């Protein structure tokens, strides 16, 4: 019979809280940079300028198909050899996950933009709006609404993937958990608590996203014209 003993875990709970904050920091920053970068890649990809579109397509495909752990190691260990930068685990993590998630966000943006009826472009064009005005005022606002479920799913995926940063010794939740498990000899309790923490975090986040979706659905209306 296994004896559960959470006391040792809760005695050092602040260690896990620090880890949680660091996880949120990396995820938040990756979103902050990844979303606009994703939009930029999507716009390049949709551009009628062929070379520009090809470059974007290549970057997007590359970061979607290579394993995130390889990307992380590359930015952490390989990039400093190429150019003279000092890589901390934190910077490597933010750079990797910003670019990696931007590739996915680019595809979500592209899908959203392309799902908008051609008539919307025509309606905007007919009153004299330029391509960029139409995109900004007419197409994107509607596309973004449709993107929200995919966007939330991807953000949750990103949060989970950030556990990889523990491999370059960034003190995220997973790294702190490993630390604590070794210190307390209580891996069962530690990883159970950590699993619950991730669950609660992601559960709250997805409930939040459902609420946002509902509100948007109510405030505007379906994107049928």
């Amino acid at each position, binding site marked *: 019979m296994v004896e559960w003993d959470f006391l040792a875990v809760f005695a050092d709970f602040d260690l896990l809280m620090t880890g949680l904050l660091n996880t949120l920091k990396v995820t938040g920053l990756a979103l902050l940079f990844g979303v606009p970068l994703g939009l930029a890649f999507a716009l390049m990809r949709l551009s009628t300028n062929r070379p520009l579109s090809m470059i974007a397509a290549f970057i997007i495909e590359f970061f979607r198909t290579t394993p995130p752990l390889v990307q992380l190691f590359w930015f952490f260990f390989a990039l400093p050899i190429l150019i003279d930068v000092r890589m901390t685990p934190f910077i490597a993590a933010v750079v990797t996950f910003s670019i990696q998630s931007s590739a996915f966000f680019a595809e979500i943006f592209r899908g959203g933009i392309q799902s908008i009826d051609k008539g919307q472009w025509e309606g905007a064009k*007919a009153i004299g709006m*330029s391509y960029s005005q139409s995109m900004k005022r007419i197409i994107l606002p*509607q596309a973004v609404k449709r993107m929200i479920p995919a966007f939330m799913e991807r953000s949750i995926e990103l949060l989970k993937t950030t556990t990889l940063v523990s491999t370059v010794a960034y003190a995220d939740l997973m790294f702190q958990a490993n630390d604590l498990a070794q210190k307390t000899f209580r891996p069962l309790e530690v990883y159970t608590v950590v699993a619950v923490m991730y669950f609660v975090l992601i559960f709250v986040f997805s409930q939040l996203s459902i609420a946002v979706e509902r509100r948007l659905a109510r405030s505007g209306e379906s994107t049928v*014209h």
Partner: protein
Amino acid sequence: MSEIVRIENLHKSFDKLDVLKGIDLSVSAGETIVLLGSSGSGKSTMLRCVNFMEVPSDGRIYLHGDLIGSEQNGRMNYRESELCTLRTRIGMVFQHFNLFPHMTVEQNVMEGQLTVLKRSQTEARDKARAQLERVGLADKALEYPARLSGGQKQRVAIARALAMDPDVMLFDEVTSALDPELVGEVLKTMRQLAEEGMTMLVVTHELGFAYHVANRVLFLSDGAILEQGEPQQVLKAPKTKRMREFLDGHSLFKLPD
């Protein structure tokens, strides 16, 4: 009457398909011209070339006597910014309305005024209200398009185009997607515009509208204008076999005697 639009030798082809094979037309101020023709005869393409939703393959288009674009080595060149400005002066209404669903009716009518004409909020709102009044929808200003009937949506689309103060309005089968009982309200709005002196180019299958409202009827066939003239003449005494066959196919819409 002063000339608003002149089309000279307009050609348009898509890849190998020659849709328009040399169209000439002069539209005077206040004129309502109805364009007839069977499906696929190029009516939409012709309208869309007038406001450069499609770029003509050849030919010239003038607005108020000014040539659109510039000629270089025998080919026409068009700058996108010039075309955007041109489109503010040529209103267009579509079969499927193309209203912006994420904006209220009023915002729809204000959008072009704000982003393209750079009018102030106050001015744009006043103008929007006035145009909605004109099409009989002042009370719907704050609704979203999804809550309107098809006929109301189309009248909002007309108001949206009118709010730009265009010199000419293009209508491309604007009643074709409507339930039969809603067609009348849109045609009535268009008739009112014609009577107010708006210059209009109208593609429609509503022969009654052509008969009663148009100053001139054109029949497009095989990418060229096969017949044109006053509605009484063209609709009641067609000269060509093609035109007679076309009219026979429209016996549903009976003409007044």
